[in-house]
């Protein structure tokens, strides 16, 4: 099948559109998703195609509309809830954590919550501290939900339908910097697996583990390392909960060195979890301590140079990889 040029934004939109066409139970709701077209323009045009019942503008009430999505899922619908940014999802955290993630367990398996909640995450657009954080690692802490972080066009296009078929709550984190990313994608690109991490670049000297918005920086770092004679393997986690330990450990056992690149803060982070798992499962295969490149322990600043310095960047990833090689 021929490839077509598309953007990450268009890929997400195509995924929503396809899901709406495939299943009448699917509807989208969130702030500005309808008349405005989505604050990141993801849902542009969908209101005209599907109408107000199914492309549903909500008041600025994160808790109520997220909870309504949860209730609607329990009532037999397949809602896609869009939360503008992960920062605002904290207003819905009670519903996500205390209801969506717990109902199946508290009801002894009687009720499931097949809701999909999408939100933007990440820094890089000079939006300052209340619009720039990467809190997906927090959500990955919670049993009872699945957490996805599509980095590629194929995953942006393909993860949504798989998520909608999942009988449990699925959170999809879209890095805000990726929406404008352009690339070629197969014209017939469809649903993808959401269980496995992907090896995005093969190498045998160090494993760079990352996801979402940091994937392309990490691939760039791997390219820089290659020029220097270091063959880095790059793993895109894709699913942050449950983590695909098998893919991570297989790579680390081969390369004997690992660096985790995570836009979350270092303390108590997803990178800490991954590092601990490598220590638990592959300690005797390691030739160096597991390295980490995370966000600085600071609320993300507004000024461009400070913001850039606060989050993982290519030179820092290259440096961390070199350190595991003693170079």
């Amino acid at each position, binding site marked *: 099948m021929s490839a077509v040029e598309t953007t990450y934004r268009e890929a997400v939109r195509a995924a929503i559109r396809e899901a709406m066409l495939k299943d009448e139970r699917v509807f989208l709701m969130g702030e500005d998703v309808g008349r405005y077209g989505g604050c990141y323009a993801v849902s542009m045009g969908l209101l005209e195609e599907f109408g107000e019942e199914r492309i549903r503008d909500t008041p600025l009430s994160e808790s109520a509309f997220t909870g309504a999505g949860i209730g609607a899922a*329990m009532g037999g619908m397949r809602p896609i809830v869009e939360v503008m940014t992960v920062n605002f999802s904290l207003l819905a955290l009670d519903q996500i954590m205390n209801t969506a993630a717990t109902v199946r*367990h508290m*009801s002894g398996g009687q009720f499931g919550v097949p809701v999909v909640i999408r939100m933007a995450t990440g820094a890089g657009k000079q939006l300052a501290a209340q619009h720039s954080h990467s809190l997906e690692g927090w959500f990955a802490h919670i049993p009872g939900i699945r957490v996805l972080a599509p980095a590629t066009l194929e995953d942006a296009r393909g993860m949504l339908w798989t998520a909608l078929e999942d009988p449990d709550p699925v959170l999809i984190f879209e890095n805000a910097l990726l929406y404008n990313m352009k690339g070629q994608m197969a014209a017939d690109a469809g649903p993808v697996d959401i269980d496995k991490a992907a090896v995005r670049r093969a190498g045998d000297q160090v494993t760079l583990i990352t996801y979402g918005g940091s994937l392309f920086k990490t691939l760039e770092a791997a390219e820089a390392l290659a020029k220097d004679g270091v063959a880095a393997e790059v793993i895109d986690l894709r699913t942050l909960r449950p983590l695909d330990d098998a893919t991570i450990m297989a790579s680390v056992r081969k390369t004997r060195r690992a660096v985790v690149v995570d836009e979350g803060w270092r303390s108590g982070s997803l990178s800490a979890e991954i590092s601990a798992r490598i220590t638990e499962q592959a300690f005797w295969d390691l030739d160096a301590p597991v390295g980490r490149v995370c966000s600085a322990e600071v609320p993300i600043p507004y000024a461009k140079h400070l913001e850039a310095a606060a989050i993982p960047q290519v030179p820092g990833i290259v440096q961390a990889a070199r350190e595991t090689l003693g170079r």
Partner: protein
Amino acid sequence: MTEPPSGTHPRVSREHVLHLLAQMIRIRRFEEKCAELYTQEKIRGFLHLYIGEEAVATGVMEALAPDDAVVATYREHGHAIVRGIPMTKIMAEMYGKQEGCSHGRGGSMHIFDAGTRFYGGNAIVGGGLPLAIGLALADKMQKRRRVTACFFGEGAAAEGEFHESLNLAALWKLPVLFVCENNRYAMGTALDRSESETDIHRKAESYRIASQAVDGMNVVDVEAAARQALAAVRETGAPHFLECRTYRFRAHSMFDAQLYRDKAEVEAMREHGPIKRLTEWAEATHFIHAGDLERVEAQVAEEVDTAVAFAEAGTWEPLETLTRHVMAEEARP
């Protein structure tokens, strides 16, 4: 108690009065037994008793149809019992046995039952309101004429989710019956110490939701109001709000020494208790006869004994299944 209502109101027959009385007595005796079992350490965790508030669940549930949904709070034993979940399964849940209605995973605060569309059992104050909105939205979008009844205490009116949910229900015209069980104390804080507007139903009016206050100690009034409200919801699809003014005779939970209210106040309210009032009225109007009450009490005592025996005989879920019911067990497609 005033004269029974007529017309579209509930049929007040001898049979019906006895039924209402029996339902309230079932809740009362079940919970008295729970309190006793708690002191024996058979039941643990938080135990929030509904004693004194029986008329609310009984009256509303009487008016609901079997395919309507119910969203309740952590003080939900009464709702669960009159909704029709077997008392045996509720008691086994109190014990934490796998034969319980939530298979021992929920306990007192998280009673769930798919068969009666009973969606918990929510221990986050106000947390059930968005869920009810969603259930009603699903019905509306799937063109089903069902109603979601959402119970919550007046303490929930202080939570943002109350306001967000009322706004959404009115804005989207969703078939929700909001039932505020105003027992005058949010945990240990009196209403006038926590709310600037103590007429809770007026808050609903500000969202353009049809709203009324009703004597929540009078089961006939509650049932009549619920029937009218539900008829309106079914007719218009729009939400309705009932503030049922009630009182809990017991502490907030078993850990509460009730230092925030006078014993005299509790005693005075007991005089207006829903079971006592219905009994006295039914005797005065000859709806119940000599021996009726004794017969109901005997039947309920037997039901409670059976429930306790069922729970005692129940089994503990094996530890190997600890991590069950976190994610779906059926394979994903």
